């Protein structure tokens, strides 16, 4: 093989005055960046470093720093360093560029161009420490008249759920952490498309099971061992393509859960091969409802793509009780880089448009709207609810709470944080008790913040925040963007 | 309840702890024949060597006895009257007891040799002995040690440290015959010799002259400033015998450490202990057992019924920078595995799937688990030991051992106590 033109992405700095040769960095880096030799010399193999910070975080003397490798190309506004490196990579590998997590490109984030309102004088703000502040949310079809039987609903005490992340893409300990947190906080976690492992079956009451194009692990038991069922059509990180869990991640546990042979590739087709049109979806929804005796709401998850309003309308009319829309910032365990970075639309636009479209069509009460992809903090939650979502899914934020450092190499299965891996040794690194505690802490913190923000607005029930676009003002947005979001500019 | 303990030693301290675990009120009286308080016998060689002051010898402080409300009487018991429930002291005083513990220990064996009464011929068994020897130490002069057991070697070390030339005379063909195998004894011997100690194995003294010259069986004569006799010990069971208690090589006790008289218990070097491995009752004068036996006897005297399952031979000795630890049954044979690296070595005797004995030299770290494996008779296949002995370490201990440890942790179940 000829010389690789790729230089390391990161530089590992070691402060010799601090390094005590304890070897923690050595034993913690699965990528073998650090090496301590018999003579007490520390060596680093920087090209292996993915910038996950595992070593730096665990270093007891803070002797390590990870920085970007300081090798600049001649400045070029058009040909960025990344675009050059990507070409080097492809010139060497001849393959599709793979990556993980969500779209990192500097597209406009509408969340960062929306400001929230607060009460001053003319109405009182409400102090959540003194007054009740309700985040209770029911997801599902609310359209049944009072004289009819109510449709099954999901009750959430905080309008934040954990996104679909399959066992296989993430470790079982991630699922255990999120399941425990969901139960504690009275919300839901989502199995993703990888089936339901025996050890998380006990969380049925707070589990949403997913039915995706690979149909991994799907059985009547699976559907019934859940609070709701989600049909996944697409996801924000890779709209229009299927999934591929590389064979290296298909451990015996994963294999059993997915009902496939161990150490074989798990391929989810791009479309469901029994859904080539909206009426096919209606049939699958009906089939699942029959299989679960009409006792559980059925959700349909789609990626936010260009004509999302029409798609969402069709989904509601096809009988979905919940429509989950995954924006272009949504993450994944593995996706082709070009797809992740160039397909889809912002979730803010998608929710604003879908909510309005469903209202215009008078069918908004028939389904709840869940926003996924790119929710970073409680303010994002409040903003997306005000734009019209009933609840949100968080995936990346939940994983970050568990320790993810967004190194974007999930697809390798060599996650130093024990998250995006099925390796036994690595999976250990996430103790679900700690994971659950951290996820619970995150949700509790957001809960407090959401309540503070609602209280400031003079609102004491999340019902009154939902679709309350007067609580939003745009800043630095063009008129057409304001119109699409249905908000007025700051100052108006 | 009146508890009386004869002997103020390790077993006595254990007994006080045992009694007080269950009885906070009863009177405890300890008869301290040596009048030195509760000190640790093995430490007297450190006193002799000068590496430890008198204060460091105490096994339990006076405060310990005060705190436990145990009265210590500096006197020697001369007679026991079981029907009357009394102990007679050397000053004529009579002490009443309801429950009596005999912790009278042992005494050194003195061979019958011409000149053995010579004033520069000493034993090293008591604090007083150590003081007397210390008074005779002369730098550069020769000290002859008869016997290469634990006491002999500790005496050799102490005198060597005090600047004396030391010659050890051992009747057997190897040093530490009760502890080591010939293979490991060779390793230990080499170490002793490297430290400048002369060892004559396979010989014994036949006489000691007026001038202190020791004559050996092959005619050699060693002029000695000091002769230490360390050829073994014997239980002090005369009190028991005279009181009509059943005795053998030592006082005979049941599994509750009770003698043939139900109000009298016995513990420590004076008793015959059940050897777990051989199944026989033997005198096992080992300090670790003394405390446990005293403790269990104390518990039982206070009305409990705690069984003493017996023990195995085990010893740890440290001299001149060498640590020797050995445990198990020296007299049974089996497959022998040996390992040596630098100054460390390990020898294991395995019979079937059971470890019978090990001898570890300068390899102390793994001995605790090995002792447990011998004592608890944890079943481990030979091939696992063959794997282990390639690189003996905590991490390479056989899986069966760790499984057993987990079981203990979950359910309790150490056989002792």
């Amino acid at each position, binding site marked *: 093989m000829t010389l690789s033109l790729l230089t390391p992405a990161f530089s590992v700095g070691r402060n010799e005055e601090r390094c005590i040769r304890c070897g923690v960095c050595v*034993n913690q880096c699965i990528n073998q960046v650090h090496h301590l030799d018999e003579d007490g010399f520390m060596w680093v193999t920087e090209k292996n470093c993915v910038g996950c910070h595992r070593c730096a975080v665990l270093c007891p003397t803070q002797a390590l720093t990870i920085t970007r490798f300081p090798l600049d190309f001649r400045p070029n506004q058009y040909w960025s360093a990344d675009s050059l490196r990507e070409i080097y990579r492809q010139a060497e590998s001849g393959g599709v560029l793979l990556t993980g997590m969500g779209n990192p490109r500097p597209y406009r984030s509408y969340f960062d161009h929306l400001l929230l309102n607060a009460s001053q004088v003319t109405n009182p703000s409400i102090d959540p420490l003194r007054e009740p502040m309700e985040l209770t949310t029911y997801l599902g079809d609310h359209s049944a008249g009072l004289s009819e039987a109510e449709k099954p609903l999901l009750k959430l005490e905080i309008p934040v759920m954990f996104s679909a992340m399959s066992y296989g893409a993430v470790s079982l300990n991630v699922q255990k952490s999120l399941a425990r947190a969901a139960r504690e906080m009275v919300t839901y976690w989502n199995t993703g498309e990888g089936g339901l492992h025996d050890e998380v079956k006990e969380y049925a009451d707070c589990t949403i099971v997913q039915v995706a194009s690979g149909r991994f692990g799907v059985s009547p038991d699976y559907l019934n061992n859940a609070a709701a069922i989600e049909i996944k059509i697409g996801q924000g990180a890779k709209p229009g393509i299927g999934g591929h869990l590389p064979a290296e991640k298909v451990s015996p546990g994963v294999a059993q859960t997915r009902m496939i042979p161990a150490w074989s590739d798990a391929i989810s087709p791009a479309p469901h091969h029994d859904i080539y049109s909206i009426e096919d979806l209606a049939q699958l929804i009906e089939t699942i409802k029959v299989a679960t005796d009409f006792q559980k709401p059925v959700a349909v998850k789609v990626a936010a793509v260009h004509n999302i309003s029409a798609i969402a309308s069709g989904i509601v009319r096809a009988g979905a009780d919940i429509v989950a829309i995954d924006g272009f910032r949504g993450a994944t365990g593995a996706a082709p880089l070009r797809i992740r970075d160039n397909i889809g639309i912002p979730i803010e636009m998608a929710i604003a448009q879908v909510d309005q479209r469903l209202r215009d069509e008078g069918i908004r009460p028939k389904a709840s709207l869940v926003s996924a992809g790119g929710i970073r903090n409680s303010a994002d939650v409040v903003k997306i609810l005000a734009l019209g979502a009933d609840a949100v899914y968080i995936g990346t934020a939940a994983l970050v709470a568990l320790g993810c450092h967004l190194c974007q190499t999930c697809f390798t299965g060599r996650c130093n944080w024990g998250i995006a891996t099925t390796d036994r040794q690595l999976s250990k690194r996430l103790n679900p008790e700690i994971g659950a505690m951290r996820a619970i802490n995150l949700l509790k913190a957001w809960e407090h913040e959401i309540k503070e923000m609602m209280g400031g607005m003079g609102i004491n029930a999340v019902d009154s925040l939902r679709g309350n676009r007067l609580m939003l003002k745009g800043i630095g947005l063009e008129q057409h963007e304001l119109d699409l979001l249905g908000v007025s500019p700051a100052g108006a | 309840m009146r508890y009386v303990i004869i002997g103020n030693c390790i077993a006595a301290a254990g007994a006080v702890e045992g009694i007080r675990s269950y009885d906070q009120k009863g009177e405890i009286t300890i008869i301290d024949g040596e009048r030195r308080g509760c000190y640790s016998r093995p430490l007297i060689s450190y006193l002799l060597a000068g590496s430890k002051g008198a204060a460091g010898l105490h096994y339990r402080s006076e405060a310990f006895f005060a705190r436990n409300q145990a009265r210590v009487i500096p006197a020697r018991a001369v007679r026991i009257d079981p029907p009357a429930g009394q102990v007679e002291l050397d000053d004529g005083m009579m002490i009443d007891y309801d429950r009596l513990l005999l912790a009278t220990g042992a005494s050194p064996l003195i061979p019958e040799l011409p000149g053995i009464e010579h004033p520069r011929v000493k034993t090293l068994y008591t604090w007083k002995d150590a003081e007397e020897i210390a008074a005779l130490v002369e730098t550069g002069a020769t000290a002859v040690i008869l016997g290469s057991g634990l006491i002999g070697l500790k005496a050799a070390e102490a005198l060597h440290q005090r600047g004396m030339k030391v010659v050890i005379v051992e009747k057997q063909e190897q040093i530490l015959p009760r502890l080591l195998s010939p293979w490991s004894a060779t390793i230990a011997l080499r170490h002793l010799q490297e430290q400048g100690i002369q060892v004559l194995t396979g010989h014994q003294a036949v006489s000691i002259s007026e001038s202190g010259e020791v004559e050996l069986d092959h005619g050699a004569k060693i002029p000695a400033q000091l002769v230490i006799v360390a050829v073994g010990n014997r239980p002090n069971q005369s009190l028991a015998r005279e009181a009509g208690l059943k005795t053998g090589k030592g006082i005979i006790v049941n599994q509750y450490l009770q003698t043939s008289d139900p109000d009298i218990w016995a513990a420590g070097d004076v008793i015959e202990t059940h050897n777990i491995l051989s199944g026989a009752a033997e005198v096992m004068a080992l300090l670790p057992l003394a405390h446990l036996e005293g403790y269990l006897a104390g518990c039982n005297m206070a009305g409990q019924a705690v069984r003493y399952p017996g023990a195995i031979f*085990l010893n740890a000795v440290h001299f001149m920078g060498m640590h020797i*630890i050995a445990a198990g049954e020296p007299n049974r044979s089996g497959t022998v595995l040996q390992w040596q690296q630098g100054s460390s070595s390990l020898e294991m005797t395995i019979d079937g799937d059971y470890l019978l004995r090990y001898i570890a030299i300068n390899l102390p770290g793994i001995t*605790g688990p090995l002792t447990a494996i011998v004592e608890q008779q944890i079943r481990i296949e030979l091939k696992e030991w063959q794997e282990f002995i390639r690189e003996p370490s905590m991490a390479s201990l056989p899986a069966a051992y760790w499984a057993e440890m987990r079981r203990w942790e979950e359910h309790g179940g150490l056989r002792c*106590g």
Partner: protein
Amino acid sequence: MRVQSNPEYCLGCGLCRLYCAAAHDGYDGNLLKAFKRGTPQPRADLIVRNDKSWLNTCRHCHNAPCINACLTGALQKDDQGIVFIDSQRCVGCFTCVMVCPFGHIQPSRDSYRVVKCDLCRDQKGIPACVSFCPNGALSLTEEVETR
């Protein structure tokens, strides 16, 4: 009371050993100083076996064999049930090492005495190994007294 080690979540990183060593060998638990200036020794060893690892801590047994065996009375049990060693009195005979069935007690580096877990009784708060375990594999527990 004892530190319980859960191999299921032990990463084998060894931070417990480091902080244990620093907590006991001077410099006020300052890890950097302790290791740069001295040669601190952990009181409990991390055992790494195949795919499992755990801290081999003291079980602080009831009727502890090590206390029974101690020649000098250096090993004691305090009011809280913590088995600790009075280093001043230890002569390094290693009898306790020989009788600890868990292999917890180990010789000191200089071989003149032994070291063992004392649950950081001289410091305030929970033992250093527990508080610095990054994955909750160590916990201070009241239960399970091994006899």
